[in-house]
């Protein structure tokens, strides 16, 4: 994944509404799939994922004027997405302290031509997202970001922790995911 370069927008404070809209559209276009995957790692159903994506978009729009160019656009978008995801998880905890297993529906699209292979891949992905959603928040966030292909320093910038902490968390998160998926070391 490549980052979207915005050399001319070192800071978005005080930019015109038109410039803000252009930046928003460009960033959402570049990171749409990542944002949807982040949403799928927090929300169970497709409808909830849609709601969360909209919430992330709203938060990104609101947060754009606070972008000062201190991090990359990708880091900023991931921060907004995972902050909103954590917020969603907190509200979810209030609404449904123990979500039913049958509510853990993860709708995944697969465009593979072979129906059997598609079904197999679909099930595998469904299991993976269900396992991710079952992990504690710090493990889930670090794994999701690493699976997106972010480097450890970038993950540290998104989460506000040290690179060392990322390494430790990631190692534990991998073990937890492996256990959730029923794998063995």
């Amino acid at each position, binding site marked *: 994944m490549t980052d979207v370069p915005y050399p001319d927008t070192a800071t978005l404070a005080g930019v015109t509404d038109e410039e803000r809209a252009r930046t*928003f559209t460009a960033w959402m276009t570049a990171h749409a799939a990542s944002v949807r995957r982040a949403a799928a790692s927090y929300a169970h159903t*497709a409808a909830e994922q849609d709601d969360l994506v909209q919430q992330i978009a709203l938060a*990104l729009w609101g947060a754009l004027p606070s972008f000062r160019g201190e991090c990359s656009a990708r880091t900023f978008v991931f921060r907004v997405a995972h902050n909103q995801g954590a917020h969603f998880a907190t509200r979810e905890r209030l609404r449904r302290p123990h979500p039913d297993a049958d509510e853990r529906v993860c709708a995944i*699209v697969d465009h593979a031509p072979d129906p059997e292979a598609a079904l197999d891949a679909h099930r*595998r992905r469904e299991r993976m997202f269900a396992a991710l959603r079952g992990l504690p928040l710090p493990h889930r966030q670090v794994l999701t970001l690493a699976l*997106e292909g972010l480097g450890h320093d970038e993950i540290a910038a998104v989460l*506000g922790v040290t690179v060392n902490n990322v390494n430790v968390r990631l190692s534990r998160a991998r073990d937890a995911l492996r256990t959730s998926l029923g794998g063995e070391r």
Partner: protein
Amino acid sequence: MSRDDDEWAAWARDFQGSPAEGDAETPAAMLARVRRETWKQRRAYLWEALACVVLIGFYVVMLGRQRATWFVVMASANFVFAALWMGYLTHTLRGTWSAAGADARTFVALTRARRAAEHRWFRFSRALTAAMLLFVVAWAPFVLRARWERYAAEPWRAVVGFGVALLIGVAAMVHQTRKLERAERELAALDAAAGE
């Protein structure tokens, strides 16, 4: 390639190859939606501001007619309340999105601080409502005695007057208690999420 690397590569392939299903809204449609939502938030704020202006206006007009000490005290309390309420709303509106782009740890800390401020505010407003309710209850017998002849002739005036005041006070207390409890639950959930 080690076994760990193979496993990670398989996970990453599964993860990155799976955009979740949903109504694939285009960024342009998303932009239109966020603009609508932003306007809705501003409108909600403007309604609150209007309610404060009406409240202040009501007491200003009434102060022109009623100069009794108790009324001046009540009007002053309401002016202070309206000013605090507007200050709180403005602060909340400004702070809502500024934290969204911060790193996760800062965001959780800021969200917790905001929820704690909300909690303090709800506790304060509930205490203020309780004080006003107590004031009305303590004041009611004096009003009843002063207007006894009128109320004896037309009891519905007393029922409607005191009944409505009591109903508004109790409804406000129940509403604020619910908000306070919700804020407490949100704080606990935030702490639980942070401590995971």
